[in-house]
Structure formats: structure tokens, C-alpha cells
């Protein structure tokens, strides 16, 4: 190897290096992701769902929540592709609007819990000692209590306090982030602690790099891939939790539709047997969306490993 570099004069060598193929790790990862068919189909489905939910209702001829007593519980037809519900509202329009809420709640609560979790986890790992103890014991406490019962209690409180329906969506987001952050904080903290002990961090000490550089050039870039994967997967979990809450009438309240409370509205024997178009579409929507997110998240995890080459 030294003979090769020796035969090239230094200026030539320098010029060759001025125009490098800077294939960044992210671009490599993207390339691998494109080749992962399963993950890509998940991704395409998520994009399709987002487009349908956010743009779809704009093209619907039926106004939001417009009641039509003349056309109740109509079976799917060319006019109403997925039929109408017991108040004569178009199910497809409501399904897409419900998707807006469900997806927004899922993504927003993921964002809040990721931000909260990573800041608290990083603070705990950085300061250690008593700060670490306090944050982590609070996180442990929240983790030991099963999430759903807490959500139920909080949801019941919200109903008791008669929180207006339009605010409930935001409160549900906060509730889900409140449940979600401890896991993320633990993850970020443990990752930070383990990276700290890696030999390249000791090399950074020996090189005399300052704390900012150690943190932003060495530690955080090693956490971000994992964080992306966990964040993606947690959107699915948040959508599920929101649906469960709304199904029990403790999350987002009608008339604001979500996939969960749409199923709840069909939660009786007659609707179950006679009007399957009321509960099958939101059920399928939850199922497929969460599956797509999980498939995509798994694909991301496979792809965001720099040691993996193909």
C-alpha cells in the first residue's frame, strides 16, 4: 500500500482527495433501505395513509360530521364507499378524519416523549450521582405501574373535570408522552453510559477533546440511529394506546372521530352483526398502520448499522 502512495506524487494525491466520493453513512443507509422491499412497502403504506388522511377529506363531498337522518346505517354503495353510520355520516370521510387525529396523536406524543426522554436520559448519564438517581427512580416508578391503568385513571379524571372535547386530543398526547418517556430515558441513559466507556471515548480524552466535541461529535451520532428506530416503533405503540383509550371512551371524545372511538361507536351486538362497515374499516386501519410502522421500524434498525454491508 505504501508503494502505491509512494508512486503518486503528493500534489496529485492531494488533488485526488479534493474530489472525494463522500458517501455519507446516511446516504448508505438510505440506499440499503431502498433495497429492503418489506421496509419500503411499510414506508409507502405509511405515506399513503398520511396523504389519504390529511388530503383525502378535502375531496370528500360530505361535510364534517354532517348528520343525515334520511340515510342512516346505509350499506357501502357507490355514493358512500364505506356506507354511513347511525347518524347518517359518511364512514369513509370520518375514517380519514379519524386517521388525522390518530396519526397526529401518535406522532406528536412520540416527539414529546423522545425529546423528554432523551434530555432526561442524557442529563442523568452526564451528571450521574444524585440527579441520575432522582430521574431514574421516577422513571422506574412509572415503568413499574402498568401504563394502561394510569391512562384509564387519567382519562376518567379528564371526564370528571369535563374537559372540552377539542382539548382532549392534546391532553391525550401529553398523557401518552408521560407514559412513554421513562423507557426512552432509560435507553438513552444506558446508551450514553456504555458509549462513554468505549475505547474511542478514551481516545477522545487522550486527544484532549473538549466536552462539547465529545458529546456532539462522538456520543450523540452513536445514539441517533437507535433513537430513530425506537421513535418510529413507538409511534405504533402510541397509536395503539390512543385507540384503546378512545375505545373505552377515555381518550378523544366523539364527535371528534378517532379510529378507537369509531370502533367503540359500533360496540353493540346489532352493529357488530348487521353493520360490519362501521367497525371493520377503523379496525383494519389501526391494524395495517401499526403493522406498517413496525415493519418500517424493523427495516430501519437493520439498515442503520454502519458495520452491516451488502
Amino acid at each position, binding site marked *: 500500500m505504501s508503494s502505491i502512495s509512494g508512486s503518486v506524487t503528493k500534489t496529485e494525491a*492531494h488533488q485526488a*482527495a479534493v474530489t*472525494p466520493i463522500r458517501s455519507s453513512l446516511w446516504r448508505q443507509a438510505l440506499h440499503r433501505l431502498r433495497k429492503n422491499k418489506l421496509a419500503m412497502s411499510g414506508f409507502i403504506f405509511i405515506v399513503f395513509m398520511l396523504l389519504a388522511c390529511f388530503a383525502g377529506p378535502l375531496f370528500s363531498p360530505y361535510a364534517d360530521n354532517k348528520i343525515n337522518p334520511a340515510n342512516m346505517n346505509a350499506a357501502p354503495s357507490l355514493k358512500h364507499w364505506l356506507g354511513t353510520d347511525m347518524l347518517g355520516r359518511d364512514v369513509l370521510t370520518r375514517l380519514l378524519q379519524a386517521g388525522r387525529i390518530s396519526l397526529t396523536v401518535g406522532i406528536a406524543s412520540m416527539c414529546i416523549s423522545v425529546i423528554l426522554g432523551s434530555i432526561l436520559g442524557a442529563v442523568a448519564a452526564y451528571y450521574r450521582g444524585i440527579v441520575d438517581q432522582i430521574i431514574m427512580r421516577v422513571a422506574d416508578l412509572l415503568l413499574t405501574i402498568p401504563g394502561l391503568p394510569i391512562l384509564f385513571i387519567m382519562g376518567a379524571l379528564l371526564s370528571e373535570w369535563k374537559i372540552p372535547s377539542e382539548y382532549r386530543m392534546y391532553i391525550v398526547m401529553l398523557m401518552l408522552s408521560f407514559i412513554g418517556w421513562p423507557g426512552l430515558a432509560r435507553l438513552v441513559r444506558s446508551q450514553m453510559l456504555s458509549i462513554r466507556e468505549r*475505547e474511542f471515548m478514551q481516545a477522545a*480524552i487522550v*486527544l*484532549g*477533546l473538549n466536552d462539547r*466535541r465529545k458529546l456532539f*461529535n462522538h456520543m450523540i451520532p452513536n445514539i441517533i440511529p437507535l433513537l430513530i428506530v425506537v421513535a418510529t416503533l413507538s409511534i405504533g405503540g402510541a397509536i395503539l394506546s390512543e385507540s384503546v383509550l378512545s375505545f373505552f371512551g377515555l381518550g378523544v371524545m366523539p364527535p371528534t372521530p378517532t379510529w378507537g372511538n369509531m370502533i367503540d361507536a359500533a360496540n353493540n351486538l346489532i352493529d357488530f352483526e348487521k353493520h360490519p362497515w362501521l367497525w371493520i374499516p377503523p379496525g383494519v386501519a389501526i391494524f395495517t398502520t401499526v403493522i406498517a410502522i413496525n415493519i418500517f421500524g424493523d427495516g430501519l434498525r437493520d439498515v442503520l448499522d454502519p458495520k452491516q454491508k451488502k
Partner: protein
Amino acid sequence: MSEPLLEVNHLKKYFPITSGLFNRTIGHVKAVDDISITLQQGETFGLVGESGSGKSTVGRTIIRLTDKTDGEVKFKGIDLYNVPEKELRKLRPKMQLIFQDPYSSLNPRVRVGDAIGEALINHGLAPKEEVRDRVLDVLDSCGLSSYHIDRFPHEFSGGQRQRIGIARALILDPDLIIADEPVSALDVSIQAQIINLFRKLQTTRGLTYLFISHDLSVVEHLCNRIGVMYLGTMMETASRDELFKNPLHPYTKALLSAVPIPVPRLKRERIVLKGDIPNPANPPAGCKFHTRCPFAADVCREQVPVFRHMGGDHYVACHLV
């Protein structure tokens, strides 16, 4: 004699052994127990010993990667354990450590060029425009090609990674390089390349090395002075030629007899040591080597031998010589 570059006096590093619910300290592993080393500018000092003898800990304690328990480390006359963190950071570029494992000592998410150049930028040792040229220069002198600059560590072999590690240390133009078994993770042909690189760099840059190794033939090739460590204490130090021709300590003799020689028919008396290296948490009393020493006498079991001057620069800690 001019002021030594590095002066280590009675360095001790004990790791506490904790147990139970409240992490009570129940004992200490004496990884480094009273080690003194003096290094002159341009010298190569080889530190040898079997695994677990505390060689690496010596290196890491010298550059304050782990804290000492006791003793003194002076680098260019500055007491390293007496300077505040901020100034220590400024001193660090002048003393570099080369790690044993070339796989874990490079951040997988940082490009080679950035990994090598970042300390220059961080310390403001070169203007930003110049850094890339400096990196290319140092890559060249370490036998790497200029097109390697934008690659990631996982795209390199072990030997190349070790060169990257060396380049990362060299770009700071250090006075002292502590090489912690830099070739033990590499295969033999690559070892030779790296060793020759170390030699070349010493002649071109006048580096001072503290070379930690368990491989005597590597040390023989590279070092002018050698120290033999056993269970955290120095057993013998001498110049290379003196040590190889006239080893005094039984442990050194045993080590030397284990060095393979490339002459198949030459019969040689092999001194085989019995047993394993004792537990450093509970080292033997008296001379630490007496449990395995073929010549151990009563005095060895009772008294700790003094590190005696035997003429020239030959020192040995043994009752029987």
C-alpha cells in the same frame, strides 16, 4: 544529564474490590505497586510482562486516563497530577496513547480524516483550511493513501486501522507516545509493518516511546531499554543488550527462554514456570515471584527485595543476585 521527558516515581494504582449491598471495599487489586520509570528524550522504553502484570495500567495511569493511588508523574517537569483539568487538556496533545485494539478505538461514525484532524481543530493547533493538508501528510507518513481520508473505520483492515490510530496520535506532534500493545491484535506480517513504522517515525521525528508489550521479540527489535514487570512491580530494568545477554532475575530468564528462535535444531534450555500468576488482590508476601521461582529461598518468602543497582543501567529486585 538533561531533564528527563517523563519521570514516574513510586506510582501506585490500586483498584478497590467492592462487595455487598453498600459496595463496601473489601480489598484492593494492586495493579501497579510502586513503579518508577525515567525516560529521556528520544528513548524507547519497553515494558514487558505477562497478562495481568499491570503494564497497561501503568500506561493509562501515566497519562491520567485512570487516576493514580499514589506516587508522582512528571512530564517535562510538570506534575501531571497537580495541574487543573483545563491545563491538562492543553498538555494532552504532547503525550499520546496508541490503543491495543484498533477496532474499538476508532469511532465507527466518524470519517478517518475527521478522526485524525479533529484534535488539531479542537486545540486550535492549525487553521481550518490547513487541517486537510496536514491530515493527508500524516496519512502519507503512516503508509495510508490519500483516498482513505473520507472513508469510515469499518472499511479498513486491522493493520490499516492501527495506522489510523497512529496517525491520529502523530498529527499532534507529540513528544511522548505510549503504545499499549499496539501490535498484539494484529497478525504477524502486519506486526512487522507496524513495528517498522514505529522505528521509522522515531528516526524522522525523534519520538520517545513507552512501548508496552508481552512479546519480547517485538520489544527487542524496537527498544533501547526494557523493564520487566510482574504482578504490578518492576523486577528488572536494563538496556536491551544487557538484558538479553545477561538477565539476572529468574523471571526475566524464564521469559527470555520462552522467546521462540528461528533456528529449529538449536536446543535450548527452556525454563518453564510452574502455576499461574497469583491473584493480584492477594499477592504473595516477600518477593512476589517466590511462588513460581525455581530458586526461591526462605528470605524470598519473608522479605520484599530491594530494587538494586547492578552497574550500568541494570537494576534488579532479587535477593539472590
